[in-house]
């Protein structure tokens, strides 16, 4: 038999197994219109239930120092986490880094107040997109109005980018994050590369 195996401790191997090869292409004027970087270590939880409960508000406020976003399509954040309001009974909690104890506490407490919490950390990949041309490039495949006066920081959208469903949220004027299903990563990176080619792009891990 004798099958071949990948050495998963080797960074080179890890890089080559994903489409995340470090890559850079400059535009005609030698700029980089968009920088794409990949957030490695994140934990994501899907919270569902009828959560118009003040207990939940208190919990979130206590643990993360921000409120539950008031309306659908908004999110709140602090340095290490985001809480997105995605629907009338659906929230998405993203934690950067592995601050799991807070999450576990949250999970226990949420169960008590009859909200369901499902771990989906491996379901999504998160891409950070920054640069002057981000809005223009995203508009090539996303039907949302990405004008800087309309899509302001604090807004999140469940929409499409090309042929992939995405969750898009605007952190700053030229800074967005994209959540995509991990099996679409190849496609989305490819799409971003083709669409950014003339503007110059940089991809890193």
């Amino acid at each position, binding site marked *: 038999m004798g099958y071949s195996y990948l050495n998963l401790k080797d960074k080179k191997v890890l890089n080559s197994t994903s489409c995340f090869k470090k890559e850079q292409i400059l535009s005609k004027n030698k700029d980089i219109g968009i920088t794409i970087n990949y957030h490695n270590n994140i934990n994501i939880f899907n919270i*569902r239930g009828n959560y118009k409960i003040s207990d939940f508000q208190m919990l979130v406020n206590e643990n993360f120092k921000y409120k539950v976003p008031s309306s659908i399509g908004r999110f709140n954040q602090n340095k290490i986490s985001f809480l997105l309001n995605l629907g009338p009974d659906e929230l998405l909690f993203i934690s950067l880094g592995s601050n799991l104890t807070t999450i576990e506490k949250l999970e226990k407490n949420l169960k008590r107040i009859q909200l369901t919490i499902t771990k*989906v950390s491996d379901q999504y990949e998160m891409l950070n997109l920054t640069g002057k041309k981000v809005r223009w490039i995203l508009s*090539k495949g996303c039907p949302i109005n990405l004008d800087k006066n309309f899509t302001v920081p604090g807004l999140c959208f469940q929409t499409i980018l090309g042929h992939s469903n995405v969750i898009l949220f605007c952190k700053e004027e030229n800074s967005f994050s994209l959540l995509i299903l991990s099996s679409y990563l190849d496609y989305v990176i490819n799409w971003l590369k083709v669409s950014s080619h003339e503007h110059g792009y940089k991809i890193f891990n």
Partner: protein
Amino acid sequence: MNLITWKKLMSKKRIDNFVTNYNKKVFFNFDGKKLSGFEGESLASALIANDIKLIGRSFKYHRPRGIMALGSEEPNALVRIHKNDRIEPNIQATKVKIFDGLVSQSQNRWPNLKYDLGKVISFFSRLLPAGFYYKTFMWPNFMWKTYEYFIRRLAGHGKASDVHEDPDKYEHIHFHVDVIIVGAGPTGLVSTLLTAQSGLKTLLVDENNYFGGCLLYENDIKINSLEGKVWAYKISKKLKKMPNVTLLNNSTVFGYHDHNYITIAEECSNYSVDEYLTFPRQRLWKVRAKKVILAQGLIERPLIMSGNDLPGVMLSGSVRGYINNYGVLPGDEVLICTNNDDAYRTALTLHNVGAKVKYVLDIRAKAKGKIIESVKNLGIEVLFGYGIASVNGNREVKNVEIGPLSEAGSSIIEKTKKIKVNLVAVSGGWTPSVHLFSQSGGKLIWDKKYFCFKPSIHVQEEMTIGGTDGSFDIKKSIDETIGKTKTLLKQFGIRTFKKVNLKIEAPSLSNEIRSIWRLPNEQGKKTSDKAFVDFQNDVLTSDILLASNEGYNSIEHLKRYTTLGMGTDQGKTSNMAGIGILSNKLSKNIEEIGTTTYRYPYTPVTFGTIAGNDIKSLFDPVRLTKIDPWHRLNHAKYEHVGQWMRAWYYPQKNENFRDAVNREVYNTRQSAGILDASTLGKIDIKGSDVRKFLNMIYTNDWSSIKKGQCKYGLMLKEDGMVMDDGVTSCINDNHFHMTTTTTGAPVVMSWMEEWLQTEWPNLDVFLTSVTEQWSVISIAGPKSRDILKASNCNVNLNEKIFPMMTFKDGLIDNVPARIFRISFTGELSYEINVPSKHGLRIWQKILKNGEDFGLMPYGTEAMHVLRAEKGFIIVGQETDGSVNPVDLGMDWIISKKKNDFIGKRSLAITSSTNDRKQLVGIFTDDPNKVLPEGAHAVESSKEKTPVKMIGHITSSYFSPNCNRSIALGLIKNGHSKFGDTIYFPLLDKDVVSAKIVKPCFFDSKGERINGL
């Protein structure tokens, strides 16, 4: 705009000392001849400058044709453009902007343009009127293929490119604006200025390279004492500086869709740009505008008379345009024929550049006005009540026959006079460009004064201004525009406006027109009926009359029978005349005839533009599992399962497909096999009403399944047919984990959400898709337990502790895992779920340890064979939406206890019907013969055709474990036919005999499941 005077070139038709925007000298090629021109001017203009009149041959009759118009309304001058790998046929010469090295060719002629053999067809023209193909070439029947061969070669315009790879890049862009203004003519620019100054997000779109619209083509309009085009240039410069304004030139708005969705085709870089695949050549703008302002202006109509399609007959406004914008003179011995005042401006323009206007024929009985007087004062003879009886010449205009018209305008009352000319400028009136307005759903009204259809009822959030609105006086138009725009802006809450001071000097035209749709021929002379209405499709006035005689009296029927208005120019210069001629013939008012439905695109749009970058690797996402890098490294062959690429088989050394699959299937039952099953759908279901919900979704009973147990479930659609299946496990009373098929994952998720939201919102159930959260590694075979034990797994795998159809949580190599004892192969099997980040690592760990036990990876093909050996169904293979559980022999899965579940009511009907196709096994008499899937079964091999088909093969393989071929099929009344012989006639004429057997070919007692 560089105002540089340029010198007289070799070409005779350029006007001395004329100032234009185009000043870089370039060389281009037309039909093999090297010619000179200026970069950026249209090919039509450059050809006129080089005194080339013959540009192409017409569609049907191969008549010589030349340039008739200025812009996208041009019906005749279709050319083929080359630049290295880029070849594009059927482009209007009026739209091509020349550059150094451009190669262009005329079309539809052989062997060359001057001596085209296709001309022969003209002699048969009496056999080829409108609709001829319904009457000729009908007999004999078998000859149609031969006729078709020749007709195809003779018909059509251009030839497509032989190069199969389009080297260019295209893209799409979504854009949201407050106001979009279509058309940058005088009214469009004024409206844009007002809108932009109020701070709203504005988009101005125009077909041409420079903004100004008609101002570019006229020399008698002054705005604020500036020449029209200079004023337009100033305004566009001002607009360019504003951050809230986007200007799009060289862009055509080709579609006005629902809810102010506007599609625009932008020509980003012309052929001269060599950077393939980096910069897009064409871009599709998908614009959503809160308000749309249409300012597309007017399109001129020709007059129709015998011989009106000869090169040298041009629209009078276009003649002016070539002179004023490009500085080229299409002819110096001119006759003008008109039914309105506008053509008098052409007379003035021609005279001022030194051309000789022989006569101005005005078909109106009389007309007065400043402009007519100024023409007369130049010594040009104006003849009222006169018309052109015929235009004559071989390949270009040589002379015209003119004569006085009768009072009714239906005949020429005296002998005609022959006038020698080389240019005939005709004007039959102007039509507001209402295409986009009509596409928006707006309704038109007939204007009796100006003889045109104009906008009347607006349906969407749009407004029309200027010529599009049916306004013919530029001063009035601009005033109206300012008022209308302010009203529109008020709807955005804008109250204050910057003062707009515009002093406009323009000729005043009374513009009362007379309509004679077809000018009469000379009396007595044999009537030549070559009076063309639609130039591009060679439609004559006689064709329209013929169609009407044959009963095609509705304008939509007329269009399709004669092909009037169906060319790439969409009848821009011809539709109005067609309606007019029909209305005369039927003695009906034009309003009663109406127009045909305006559809998009306004001008042709390339497939490239529509495809954007959704091509090749971006055409459809390819989804891969996290374990895929291992499959790739080990040379797996793949197959598509929905959007996923799954490992199909793993060939070793020089194995072919069959050998590899046989090895994988055999080995799995001998030692063990490992499969990447990560693509299977997984749905996390939580809530206090989960059991109730599952009881409705599945056919079997879920009230008693305990924590830690797994159960196989079958899902039906409301019509009782099988929709999906999977194993669902109980994690606790309020938490279940459901699995579905790979392609069923999104379908089942949407299905369940639909029921929960629309029918049972009172149920406390929440769904979360976790398909990609877990990697699933499936080990099957007698050695699986040993292999798992050796992989650092802390779960007790003892048979009593971990029985079939249960699951356990634990750790494998310190990674949290959930291990299910589910078997799709009938062997001892463990489905290991780990968070997908760890999928690759755990796969490698298990396989490495397992190699010593004989563990081999197997792909989807082997998986199909293994489950078929046991007779397990695959939804989508054995089922096709018309198969219910009873057909599959799965009565046992339909709960008798449950009151109701989705599909139960329908089963009461369908399960009692006779003659249904039922799932059975098929053993071919020759054990080595593998039937093709889909093969149809018949009862006897001796029946005469047509033979009744009694079923088909759904799955068919060679089974190395049974050492013979096996197949599953759906055969009518199969369950009562075990032992019968049936026959399968194949495509290669072979008839294979087979027996119907029970659909389980291996281990029918199910003894291998515990691996003991």
